């Protein structure tokens, strides 16, 4: 501690910065900053893609991008907080009497301003990113509407059921053709549920006597899990079904097999 206490600050701003950076506690803090920032960057780039399910739609891709890049952008800020905390932690004093007093820094105008500006900037990036994603999504929903596959989804305690009006079939699994936009019109027969086709990355509550709408653009084929994301009573945990995003041929075969049994999936 004592080493940097006695030194006088150099006269010019440039020189002041370089003396500041040469201080031992400052360079150690910087090292810690690099470490913590790297940890968070790795967490974002490696962990989220590993944890999150297979991406089957544009929406899911947008979600995963946000998870990854928000972690990466926040890494340097988290790094500042953690490195300063860690540096002071390592400098700890133990024993039964208090340490001698530290330096009386009551505030530091430029630091407060720079910190606030940084967090405002970070905030704006997050907001703009979110708004752009939101906007892209609603434009896509509007323009895709005419060519959308329609699925009427009904949640009831504790099953999901689907009706495809264009194909006139009733099903209990959710099969979708790849590369065709889909619009879900969602309703509940009783209490609130929340319709969650997991790998599509969209979600919308099912309310009684009101239709809510969600929209998705499936971009890859693969199995689909449909869950309920709103506590709806006793068997909420078991209110699940499956399905798939599949090639148009597979989808058409699936539809005709159901039509063959009177339009109701067996």
């Amino acid at each position, binding site marked *: 501690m004592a080493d940097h206490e006695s030194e006088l600050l150099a006269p010019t701003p440039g020189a002041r910065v370089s003396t500041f950076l040469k201080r031992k506690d400052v360079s150690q803090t910087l090292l810690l900053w690099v470490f913590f920032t790297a940890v968070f960057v790795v967490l974002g780039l490696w962990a989220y893609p590993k944890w999150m*399910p297979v991406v089957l739609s544009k929406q899911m891709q947008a979600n995963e991008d946000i998870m990854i890049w928000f972690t990466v952008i*926040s890494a340097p800020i988290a790094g500042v907080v953690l490195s300063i905390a860690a540096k002071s932690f390592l400098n700890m*004093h133990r024993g039964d009497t208090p340490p001698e007093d*530290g330096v*009386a820094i009551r505030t530091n105008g430029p630091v407060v301003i720079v910190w606030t500006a940084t*967090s405002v900037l970070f905030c704006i990036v997050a907001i703009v990113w979110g708004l752009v994603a*939101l906007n892209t999504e609603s434009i896509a929903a509007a323009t895709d509407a005419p060519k959308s596959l329609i699925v009427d989804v009904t949640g009831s305690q504790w099953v999901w059921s689907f009706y495809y009006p264009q194909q006139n079939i009733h099903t209990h699994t959710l099969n979708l053709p790849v590369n065709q936009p889909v619009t879900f019109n969602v309703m509940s027969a009783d209490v609130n549920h929340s319709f969650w086709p997991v790998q599509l990355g969209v979600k919308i509550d099912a*309310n009684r006597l009101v239709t809510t709408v969600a929209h998705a653009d499936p971009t890859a084929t693969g199995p689909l899990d449909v869950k309920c994301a709103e506590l709806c009573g006793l068997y909420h945990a078991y209110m699940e079904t499956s399905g798939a995003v599949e090639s148009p041929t597979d989808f058409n075969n699936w539809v005709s097999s159901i039509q063959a049994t009177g339009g109701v999936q067996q």
Partner: protein
Amino acid sequence: MTTLSHAPASSRPIPNPKKSLITKLNMGTGIVVGVIFCWGTYFAMKAGRDMTDSHNVNKVLLMSMFAWSIGFLIGIGAFIGPFRWLIGKDLTDEEQLYLAVDGQGWKRYFKYCTDHKVVGIQYLVGVMALLGVGGTMAMMIRTNLATPGSHFVTPVVYNSLVGLHGITMIVAMIIVATGPFGNYIMPIMIGAADMAFPRLNALSWWVLFTAVPVLCSAWFLGGIPTGWTAYAPLSDQAGPGMNAFVATIIIFAVSTAVAGMNITTTVVAMRAKGMKWNRVPIFVIGATISVALAIPAFPTFMVAMIQTGLDRTIATGFYDANVGGSGWLYANLFWIMGHPEVYVILIPGVAALMEIAPVFVRKPLFSYNAAIAGFAGIAGLSVLVWAHHMYMAGWMPSLNGPFMVTTEFISVPTGLLFLVLIGTLWRGRPWMKLPMLCVYAFIWNFLIGGITGIYLSDVPADNYLHGSMYVTAHFHYTLMGAALTGAIGGLAYWFPKMTGRMLNERGGYISFWFIQIGFNVLFLGMFIVGAEGQPRRVADYAHLYSHANLISTMGAYSVGIGMIILLWAIVHSWRSGKIAPMNPWGAKTLEWTVPYPVPLVNFDQPPVVTSDPYGYGRSAK
């Protein structure tokens, strides 16, 4: 900072207003009268009603619960004063002194005692009991989730456990800092002789006390199957246990309103001479902002619950779409309370740690103004963000954008709180006692809670995360990792003043590491299963999630062990710990200038304040 003589505690004779009814009343008489009222109402209302109709059951149960609460308050003597006002009188001076005075020994903890120190201890014990109950339920929840298949309890019991754990913890956490420290320490900190309204102070505690058996009765009435959010129409459909939830919230809202008015008035009107606003200790600022925020928030919850109650008793249909109502009405009311409420919980905990950090780093609090701006900014914005809990409700998709903007801006004042803490730590040499360790744990936990909050506030990401375990992990990082850690820090810090003894250090350290490491393992596991797609509030889950869930449960047991050790340390130290000196940490706030036991009017001479309490440190060269 003050001129104060340390005269010994004044030894007053115990006032003994012999014939007064007040001397005969206590918690026991309260319980007796309450139980009589409760059963009386129950049988009177039940007679002649068709009890196969659930509306009638709800009417009878709700009214019996309120009757218990009112009966208890009558039985403990809460209304003697107000009743005397009706006939143009008041309690005699002797009686008032009797209600407040030190020297009735342990018995006054069971009376309608108006001494803020007694109320503070009552809150402390009450909070610990609630956390114990809520924590036990958490262990049961995690045991059930240790392996897929819901082997430990049935889904009915599981859903009830989640709801009861949630509401018990929320109630406990709302009072965890402002109850014990706000009542015991805060008046001394600002140099006041007592709270502004000592009788309301006792009232707020005993009203809260009556809510506890009501909440517990849910167990015997079929549980609370709706989660702590009690969304309609699920709550309309729910069985008799739901009445306990409705009644608890209404009673609790009365208690918080009374306490909130009392604390704000005390801080505004009763500060010591010389304690200008810029000299008020930061904990006092934080606690005041927190209760002031609760004053508008809780009545909204109360209204929401009154309407739930009416729907369930006389079928008003506020939330019933079949007759033109809407569940979105409930969701809005609930979250207009709910989001401010999370900051009601958070702010006092942070503020306690901001009080602690300068003392142990022996540096001034970095940028007092930034701290106030942070608290005020959070409180201000927090009333404008509620619908971020409803992005996927379908209520108003066009408002998702605006609510996303307001929500993300909260990260700016929140950032200031971090700045204040790391600024205080910067170049410091912290004295690593338990309170200080909690500052570090807070920084780590709240950082994780804060960053994950940014994903959740982003509509597209929330599309995926909403209703998943990810949300549960996020809010435990803020509520438990941040706010509860702050409260534990506060307890370790003020323990010597509240009990006269030092908290056992070894017990404190061991429990700290069990709790904090366990906590991070526990909720890291929940982040993973959430990101993988496990919904929250599920009794059972797919095999895909079983590893991370098992790890979570291990973490939970570690937290449980840590909490038991902490409880042991508290009980042991309280009874036979090392006697504490008057100012063991060398702090500069006023509470450390009074001896233990703190005299009835706190100060023998009113203190005079000449500076803020953060004058530590050598001047920088």
